[in-house]
């Protein structure tokens, strides 16, 4: 169980942190949420049924919500989900591509928190819609619809702005 948890953490470390960051809006709280979730998971006596990664995502998400409540913070995203441009560490990006990326980041940041969670879990966590539905306690069809609508909206905004 612990070895499996460690493997999940190594594989999904970034996406788990991003999911928590989407909810808390604070990197410190997001780290605390991930840590708290794993503390709980380590205390479990038996392995959960189903896909362990989805279970860990659910635990991190609930822990982030709990962290927010404890800290009584506004759920509005205070810190950005993405790294700053100067911290990207990629110097050979063309200005046009850089502009598109910046615009894309901005558009994703403007999405509601629930849709951002879906995007993080789908694209960065590579979870299936069924697994995301179990994490969010929503039907997979609803999750898929929200995801596709978000992508369509992003495409439309990028096309319009360009």
């Amino acid at each position, binding site marked *: 169980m612990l070895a499996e948890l460690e493997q999940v953490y190594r594989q999904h470390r970034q996406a788990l942190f991003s999911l928590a960051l989407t909810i808390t809006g604070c990197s410190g709280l997001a780290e605390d949420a991930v*840590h708290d979730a*794993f503390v709980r998971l380590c*205390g479990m006596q038996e*392995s959960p049924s189903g896909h362990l990664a989805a279970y860990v995502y659910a635990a991190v998400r609930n822990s982030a919500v709990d962290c927010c409540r404890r800290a009584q913070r506004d759920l509005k995203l205070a810190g950005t989900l993405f790294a700053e441009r100067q911290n*990207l560490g990629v110097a050979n990006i063309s200005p046009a591509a850089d502009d598109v990326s910046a615009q894309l980041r901005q558009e994703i940041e403007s999405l509601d928190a629930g849709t951002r969670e879906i*995007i993080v879990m789908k694209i960065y966590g590579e979870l299936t819609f069924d697994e995301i539905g179990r994490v969010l306690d929503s039907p997979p069809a609803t999750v898929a619809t929200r995801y596709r609508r978000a992508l369509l909206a992003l495409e439309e905004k990028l096309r319009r702005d360009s």
Partner: protein
Amino acid sequence: MNELERQIRELSLRQPGDSMDDRLFSLLRSSSDNAPREQSHPEHASTSMMDSCTSKTFLANETTQTRRGIFSAMFAGLTTALLIGIAVGNAMPSLWSDSRSSTAGLTSSASADNAIVPENEIGSEMPTRHPMLPDLPAHVREALKNRPGVGSQFVESSYQSAITGAAHWEQQNGEVFNVATHVSDRRFDMCRDCHRVGG
């Protein structure tokens, strides 16, 4: 994965600090060495116990759903208590006014006839005993009724107002009843209670 998804995936996410890795790996190692150590942490002890009990069932909502249920139950309980309170509060004045109006009707007719309504007739229309009066045996009630110097100056008849009782008392004793010290029916009842128990 379409083009847009690929573009999103290529965006650089904000990285967690190294401290998170340190904390997590030390946690995982310490858990593998000695699992109860983490459970003894006061902040997480209860949640760890809960997880061990419900590990099969909780996936999506964990403690969030539990708290939501507790809050819902508390809210439902408070709402029910409030509704019951409102219903009782609304019913009480009407019951009280009904009781008083029937009593007033009875006493006014009695005073109009200048006669006391017999106890058996009163008992047929309303309770035989005022709720505030002690439950005395019949022979004690008779004895108290026939002792004008010791007991109450009022007749021993339930639901008689001061005025009605005074008329009968004056008829029996040939004295004038001082109504000024007995302001209302309610006050009269209170005085009668005291006198009846020998006060």
